[in-house]
């Protein structure tokens, strides 16, 4: 089985003309495009059953609630979770990490404790811990990388001493590296630590099974997986989520409110304060349906082949003039390609590509500590998804040269 070849037709944006060229969208690691069915699902909500959920006894409110909860069940099953109430909706992966840090961390971490993260984390899995650490005085430890951009697991066990939480990305949004989460989880658990996983780049691109990952908590974000903006997910083991105090307070998350205090609601509502992102949840439900219909194994195979093609094309054409960060083996990485081309600054490179309709991202990719490790302030990053094909890669490869002519010093 492979992906249908006319997949681009399902994504309205991909037929746009930009600066006179058909768009070549290579920034899916920042945000993916949306298929028609996701847009339709949200329109359908707004046009036929728009109402607040979990409250109204009337028909459209009941339908809205049912569609939202059905989306929760689909999203749960998409990550291999049997208990939909373990799926908590947030506004993005960033909020999911803040929830973990504030709720679990706030009640479990104090001086003398440590949280282990890695040198390749996104700011979303760094700053929430830093904010809390400034209050609580625990230590943040960093698992370093090997020269080829993998986590240096040789150092793991010794770094685990005194660690209560290991929070690690399943796939780097800069290097593309796929990390051995289940192995890390086993060793962390053996050392008495819990494991939170950043699935923001992983869940959209690979078949995900929380049993296999062996994680205790998993964060991901809707807009990178064919879903809308404004919706993120936190999955957690029931006993763990049950043991955590509420994060945001307000409507929906309470069983009772008295002047002298409140009683929190059950999972998942305990963590869902206020009117939820209803349309967005329904949109994300449609997105995982779409992905399921393609088959995540097929998505992964497509991206392996395309990544392989891209790495070979870039290296063949540019040799020493190009540096590509991260693992060279397509099986060890996703379709995120951070590169440096001669000494062209990423901003200038992406500006030149933009003139040809090619969208790539230039910057620190919200991973400044990693940038420092790599010894750069920014990289140019091309990232691929299920709708990309070899012609997109060819456009990228062909265009680097003209940027070099203009900007190489």
């Amino acid at each position, binding site marked *: 089985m492979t992906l249908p070849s006319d997949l681009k037709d399902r994504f309205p944006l991909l037929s746009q003309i930009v600066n006179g060229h058909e768009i070549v969208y290579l920034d899916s690691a920042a945000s993916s495009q949306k298929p028609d069915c996701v847009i339709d699902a949200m329109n359908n909500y707004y046009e036929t059953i728009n109402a607040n959920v*979990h*409250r*109204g*006894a009337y028909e459209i*409110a*009941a339908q809205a*609630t*049912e569609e939202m*909860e059905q989306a929760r*069940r689909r999203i*749960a099953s998409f990550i291999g979770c*049997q*208990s*939909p*109430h373990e799926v908590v909706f947030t506004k993005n992966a960033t909020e999911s990490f803040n929830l973990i840090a504030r709720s679990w961390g706030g009640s479990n971490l104090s001086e003398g404790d440590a949280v282990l993260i890695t040198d390749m984390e996104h700011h979303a899995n760094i700053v929430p811990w830093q904010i809390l650490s400034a209050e609580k005085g625990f230590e943040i430890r960093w698992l370093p990388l090997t020269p080829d951009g993998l986590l240096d697991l040789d150092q793991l066990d010794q770094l685990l001493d005194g660690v209560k939480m290991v929070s690690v990305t399943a796939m780097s949004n800069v290097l593309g590296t796929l990390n051995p989460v289940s192995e890390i989880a086993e060793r962390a658990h053996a050392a008495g630590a819990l494991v939170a996983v950043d699935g923001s780049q992983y869940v959209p691109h690979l078949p995900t099974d929380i049993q296999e990952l062996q994680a205790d908590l998993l964060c991901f974000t809707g807009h990178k997986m064919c879903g809308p903006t404004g919706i993120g997910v936190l999955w957690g083991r029931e006993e763990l989520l049950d043991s955590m105090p509420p994060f945001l307070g307000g409507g929906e998350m*309470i*069983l*009772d409110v008295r002047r002298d205090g409140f*009683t929190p*609601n059950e999972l998942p*509502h305990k963590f869902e304060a206020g009117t939820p992102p209803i349309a967005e949840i329904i949109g994300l439900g449609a997105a995982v349906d779409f992905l399921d219909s393609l088959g995540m194994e097929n998505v992964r195979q497509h991206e392996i082949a395309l990544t392989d093609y891209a790495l070979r094309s870039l290296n063949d054409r540019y040799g020493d003039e190009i540096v590509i960060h991260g693992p060279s083996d397509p099986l060890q990485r996703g379709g995120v390609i951070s590169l440096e081309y001669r000494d062209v600054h990423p901003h200038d490179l992406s500006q030149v590509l933009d003139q040809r309709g090619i969208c790539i991202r230039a910057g620190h990719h919200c991973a400044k500590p990693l940038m420092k490790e790599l010894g750069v302030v920014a990289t140019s990053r091309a990232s691929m998804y299920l709708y990309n094909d070899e012609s997109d890669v060819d456009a990228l490869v062909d265009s680097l040269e003209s940027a070099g002519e203009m900007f190489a010093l």
Partner: protein
Amino acid sequence: MSGLEELYKEIILDHYRNPRHRGELDCPPAHKTEGFNPLCGDEVSLTFLIEEGSIKELRIAGQGCSISQASASMMAAAIQEKSIEEVRDLTREFKAMMSIHEETMTNADQESASAAALTLGDLEALKGVVKFPVRIKCATLSWNTLLTGLDDLDT
């Protein structure tokens, strides 16, 4: 108004208009347990007397809609004099009937729901509630509250 009639069966309206087992027992010797429906604010307060592992008597206080009041009243009628184990089984069976999505039941729930030989009897009248998902919490409020009360006995 066929939809409405399916929800509000005559027997339900009867229990609503003439609730059985209203009131409160003295605690102790009775035990007390309270529950809220977070969606609408309904509150139920149950007092019950355990004798030799059975529910000797149960009384209902609190306010609620026709569904929650009728369900509580029917529950009280159904469990009087039943052993704690029987009450737990009946509760599981009732909640299974009220459950729209199998996924939300644990495996244990499902097995015992089908294995239990208990009959729901009059309680079957509440089956129509499943078609009105927001009302399911009304129907299960008193049952969940009783379960919590029984769990508290063990601790």
